[in-house]
């Protein structure tokens, strides 16, 4: 449990971050949260993404969800969209992988190649 003072401090830090960043061009992380995603553990994946972003004070990243995209066997699926870079889709993302994706891809701009799935190939 956090104290009021701690919450106030967090609020101030966040305000600082918001002032620093520009409104446009922020990265997006999309977690698949259809029935298949949820059953495969997408909720914990989502919470890990949020926690890692908070820990690293990456408050300019938008986290959102999508339904089933037809690749149920690859769930939990996480898509990373950084403006000006190709969209990357990751498969079977457990909370550990999610944290590493945040650090490597979002913060250091290095996609984690071994977990990337080729959507068109998978759809065949």
């Amino acid at each position, binding site marked *: 449990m956090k104290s009021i003072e701690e919450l106030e401090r967090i609020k101030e830090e966040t305000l600082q971050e*918001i002032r620093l960043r520009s409104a446009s061009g922020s990265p997006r992380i999309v977690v698949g949260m259809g029935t298949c995603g*949820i059953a495969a553990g997408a909720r914990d994946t989502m919470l890990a993404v949020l926690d890692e972003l908070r820990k690293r004070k990456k*408050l300019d990243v938008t986290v959102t969800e999508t339904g089933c995209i037809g690749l149920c066997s690859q769930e939990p699926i996480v898509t990373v969209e950084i403006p000006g870079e190709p969209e990357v889709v990751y498969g079977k993302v457990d909370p550990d992988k999610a944290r590493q994706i945040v650090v490597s891809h979002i913060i250091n701009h290095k996609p984690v190649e071994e977990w990337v799935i080729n959507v068109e190939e998978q759809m065949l």
Partner: protein
Amino acid sequence: MVDLSLHLLDLLQNSAHAGARTVKVDILESLEHDLLQVTVSDDGKGISSDERERILDPFYTSSDRKHVGLGLPLVAQAAELAGGSLSIEDSELGGACVVVNYKLNHPDRQPLGDIVATFVSFLAGNPDLRVLFTYCGPNGVYHFDTNSIWDDIGEDSRNQLIFLGKVEEELTQGLYSAGYRPDRGGLVL
């Protein structure tokens, strides 16, 4: 789905995809009536009477991108295994209302699971949606409203992660003081 909070997340996603702006969730635990009732009611586009007849068929879906729709059938199955049922009604909010009943003490009733994680992860993807939640637990009644969380934060610091942090804090405190326990299943040893 290993617990009821995951089923709840699925029902919440259904509401969001039906275009709901407000979702009302009620969880009632009644020892007296041996009842655990989960109700999800929304102002989305609703479910027609035609669809209601087919909606529990796993091979029926409203989506044109896939061929199965397992969400509601899985919720109904878990309820039936626990001596309960699932029913679909019109919501007073204008959309659909899904009522799921379980026998509270049925040996096959799944535990509630992490309700806090369910709401936090749902609101991460749907921050503009208003969630009204009431939990009637063994120790009392707890009301939650995302609007009061937003009021707390104030217009100028509306950030997703701050909001979700407050949601987590508030829900954890309220639920546990009302007697919520994530791991309490139907099987009393």
